[in-house]
C-alpha cells in the first residue's frame, strides 16, 4: 500500500517533468507550424530561431506552449498522446486487426516465449553440465561471458540469413536470437543455485550413500529454485528484447519491433513511443507473471515465509 502511494507519487512527478520537457523539445517545430499558419513568432528569422534555445523560445512565444503537447509528429510526444495512442491501439481496436498493438504484442510474445523456453532449457542444461563437469566449468564459463560482449544486433541479420538457408523462417529465427540473449542470465543464476547447497548438506547425502542423480533431484535442484527465478526474471526481459531485435531485419513483418521500425521509418513518434511502452508493459507483465509463479511454487515447496 505504502509502495503504491510512493510509486504513484514518483510517476506523477515524472509525468509533470515530462510535460515540462515537451515545451523546449517541441517548441521549435510548433513555431514553424505556427508561422506557416500565419501567426507572428519571435524571432521572426528562421536561422536566428535555430540558434536560440528551446527554453528562451518558449518564454518569448508563450502562446504556442499548449501546442507543444498536441503536435502530430513531435520530437517528444506528451504523455497523454502516448496513452491515447496506446488506448486506441489496444482497447479501441479489434485485436485481430493488424493495426492493433495487441496483435503485434502477441506476435512478439510468441517468439519471446519460444526463445525463452529454448534459452532457459539450454541455460539449465549448460548449468547442470558446468556444475557436474570440471572441464565444462573451466572451458565454457569464460566464453559464456565473452559471448555476451558480442552485440547481438550485429549478429541478428546473419543468424537470420543462416537459418533462412536451412529453411527456417518466421518465428524460429526470432526465437533463436531471443534464446541467445536469455540463456546467459539463466546459466549464471542456475550455476550459482545448483552450487548453493553447502558442504554440510552435500555431506549429509554422502552419509546416505546417495547417487549424484539423487543429489541433483533431492538437493541441488530444489535449492536452486530461488536463484532460478531471479535469473528467469532477467532472462525473460532479455528474451523480449531479443525477439524485438530479431524483428527488425526479418523484414518488419509484424510484432512490436516492426511497429517501432515502421514508426521510425515514417517519423510517427507517437507510434514509436506507444510501441516502446507496449514493450515495457509486456516485459513488466511477464516478470510479474514469473513472480506469481515463483510465489506459488515456493509456497508449495514451503520456502516462502
Amino acid at each position: 500500500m505504502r509502495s503504491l502511494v510512493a510509486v504513484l507519487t514518483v510517476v506523477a512527478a515524472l509525468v509533470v517533468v515530462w510535460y515540462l520537457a515537451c515545451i523546449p523539445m517541441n517548441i521549435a517545430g510548433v513555431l514553424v507550424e505556427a508561422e506557416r499558419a500565419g501567426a507572428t513568432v519571435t524571432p521572426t528569422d528562421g536561422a536566428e530561431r535555430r540558434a536560440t534555445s528551446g527554453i528562451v523560445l518558449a518564454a518569448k512565444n508563450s502562446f504556442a506552449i499548449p501546442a507543444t503537447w498536441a503536435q502530430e509528429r513531435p520530437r517528444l510526444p506528451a504523455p497523454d498522446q502516448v496513452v491515447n495512442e496506446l488506448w486506441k491501439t489496444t482497447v479501441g481496436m479489434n485485436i485481430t486487426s493488424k493495426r492493433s498493438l495487441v496483435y503485434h504484442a502477441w506476435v512478439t510474445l510468441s517468439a519471446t516465449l519460444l526463445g525463452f523456453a529454448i534459452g532457459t532449457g539450454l541455460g539449465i542444461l549448460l548449468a547442470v553440465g558446468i556444475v557436474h563437469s570440471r572441464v565444462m566449468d573451466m572451458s565454457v564459463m569464460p566464453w559464456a561471458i565473452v559471448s555476451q560482449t558480442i552485440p547481438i544486433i550485429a549478429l541478428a541479420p546473419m543468424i537470420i540469413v543462416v537459418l533462412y538457408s536451412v529453411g527456417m523462417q518466421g518465428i524460429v529465427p526470432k526465437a533463436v536470437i531471443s534464446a541467445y540473449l536469455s540463456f546467459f542470465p539463466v546459466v549464471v543464476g542456475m550455476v550459482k543455485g545448483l552450487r548453493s547447497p553447502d558442504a554440510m548438506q552435500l555431506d549429509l547425502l554422502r552419509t546416505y550413500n546417495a547417487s549424484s542423480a539423487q543429489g541433483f533431484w533431492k538437493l541441488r535442484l530444489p535449492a536452486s529454485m530461488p536463484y532460478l527465478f531471479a535469473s528467469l526474471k532477467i532472462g525473460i526481459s532479455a528474451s523480449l528484447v531479443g525477439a524485438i531485435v530479431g524483428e527488425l531485419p526479418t523484414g518488419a513483418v509484424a510484432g512490436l519491433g516492426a511497429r517501432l521500425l515502421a514508426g521510425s521509418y515514417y517519423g510517427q513518434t507517437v507510434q514509436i513511443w506507444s510501441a516502446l511502452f507496449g514493450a515495457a508493459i509486456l516485459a513488466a507483465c511477464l516478470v510479474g507473471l514469473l513472480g506469481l509463479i515463483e510465489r506459488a511454487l515456493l509456497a508449495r515447496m514451503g520456502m516462502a515465509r
Partner: protein
Amino acid sequence: MTLAFAALLVWILGWAVNGWLARGPMANTPLVRLAVPLIFGLTILGVWELVVRGLNVPLVILPAPSLIAARFAGSLPVLWEDFSQTILKGALSGYVIGCGAAFLMAILVDRSDFLRRGLLPVGNFVAALPIVGTAPILVMWFGFDWQSKAAVVVVMVFFPMLVNTVAGLREATQMQRDLMQTYGASYWQGLVKLRLPAAMPFIFNGLKISTTLALIGAIVAEFFGSPTVGMGFRISTSVGQLALDMVWAEIVVAAIAGSVFYGIVALAEKTVTFWHPSQRR
C-alpha cells in the same frame, strides 16, 4: 567431407586435452586455469575453419577464421578508428556518466525510503524499454555523433547500476549499523565508513553488468544513424557490402574490448573488495 571429419577429430582432441588438464594435478594453477578456456576457444576456431572449408560454406554467409584474422590484421587503422569512436568516445563516456549519475542517485534514493519504494519499480519499468526503440529517439535528440551513443549507454547502464547500488547500500548488517549508532556517528560518517565499503561488492556487480551493456549499447545505437566511422556503422555497412570478414573482424574487436573492459573492472573489484569472501577463495 574429410575436412568435416577432421573437425570432429579436432573437437574430440581439444576436449580430451582439456579433460586431462582439468582433472590433472595442476588443475588449480593459474596457468592451467588460463590454458583450458584458451584451448577450448582454439578448438572451436579449428572446428569452425574446417567445417567452413569442408562444407564449402559461401564466404558471404560465414567466413573462415583465417580470413577474418587476415582482414583483422590488414585493417588495423580502420578498426582502431572505429574502436576509438565507438568505445573510447561513445561507450566510455556514457559508462562514466551513467554509472556516476546512478551512483549519486542511489545515495539520494537511499536516504528516503519513500523515494526508494517509488523509484525502483519505475526504474525497472524504464529499464525494460528495449534499446532498439530508445536508440532512434536518442539519435534524433542528440545528433549523429558519439554524443547520442553516449546517451544510449547512459540510459542502458543507469538502472542496473542504480538498483545494484541501492541494494548494496542496504547491505550493511543491522549489527554493523547499530555499531555506528552507538558511536553516535553522523549520516555521512555512516555512509563513508560503513555503507559505502559494504556496498562495494554490489557496486562492482553493477559496474560489471554495465560494461557489456555499454559496449552493446554504443554499437547498436550506431545502427540507427552515425557518422561514417564507428564499429556499429562498419558492421552494418559491411553487411550491406557483403564484406563478412570485416563484420567478423569488428565483432572480434568488440569481444576483445568487452573482455578487457570486463577484466579491468573485475581486477579493480578484486583489489577493492579483497575482503569479501567471494574474493578470498
